[in-house]
């Protein structure tokens, strides 16, 4: 980890995302909220809502706007699932971050897909 590297132009710390698109076979939907924290190149998120009882992400940036991540969750049907994904981040002209995932299940599910998420903008981030 390199905690002093804050030269990248995206930082997920304190940001909240919601899904706006997901492939069939995915389990999150627009009722699921993802709350991120980040230190250096590494980040985590907890997520819940919709069909998800609890979920967790760990990941790290590999390039400025690309990251690799692992995720696991317990659904409200008590199913344990886990997967990995590559994330691509984009930044709007208004500072809003979007995240696109190419994901694949590695346990508890089969197949792969793509999903997109958008940041929920909160006043405190923009003081």
């Amino acid at each position: 980890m390199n905690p002093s590297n804050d030269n990248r132009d995206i930082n997920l710390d304190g940001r909240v995302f919601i899904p706006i698109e997901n492939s069939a076979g995915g389990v999150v939907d627009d009722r699921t909220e993802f709350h991120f924290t980040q230190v250096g190149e590494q980040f985590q998120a907890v997520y819940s809502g919709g069909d998800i009882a609890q979920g967790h992400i760990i990941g790290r940036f590999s390039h400025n706007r690309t990251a690799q991540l692992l995720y696991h969750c317990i659904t409200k049907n008590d199913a344990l699932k886990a997967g990995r994904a590559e994330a691509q981040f984009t930044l709007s002209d208004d500072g809003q971050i979007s995240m696109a995932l190419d994901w694949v299940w590695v346990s508890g599910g089969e197949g792969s897909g793509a999903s997109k998420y958008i940041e929920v903008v909160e006043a405190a981030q923009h003081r």
Partner: protein
Amino acid sequence: MNVLTHVPEDYDHADVPRCGWVPPTDRLYCYYHDSEWGRPIRDPKALFSKLIQDGQQAGLAWITILRKRDNFLKAYDGFDPDIVAQYDESDVLRLLDNKGIIRSKSKINATINNARIYVQMRNEGVDFSEYLWDFVGGAPIQNSWAEFKDAPVKSPESEAMSKALKKRGFKFVGPVILYAFMQAVGMINDHSTDCHVHAACQDTRKV
């Protein structure tokens, strides 16, 4: 220019009521809030500088920019639009190589682009300060939020400013960024009513 880059040694960030977004133990953040945020700025170049700083924040936390602000001001010649407008490819490479700033090519190019538009507007006889302040009728909008979280993230005024600046070709000027800019430069007084600076920012004088 109303840009404060160092916290004076005698600054006392004692525990006084402040807006909820200010971490009370962060001296730099407290000083920025107490002495700069929400204080009306009328100087056109100072407004340009703040506009660029808010654009640099896109995707990041404001404290990241605040902590690097000295580096930014040195690297970008104080965000003086007359100087930045003359930057060429060698300046872009110099900035991309500067570890003290945000090394984003899109933000560097946007800063140079925006400086050139600022100069063009002035050459057309447009006073950048009057132009921006007109979006709030020339005087600060006075809000009375009990808590900072009650404040919106954008407003009809920031939407209108965004539309107008984008039409002129400015980059990183969405309505959320511009609402934060308008708060910071005192066009909108969004200090919470219990904040010790709220009353001091009730500047209703017109330009």
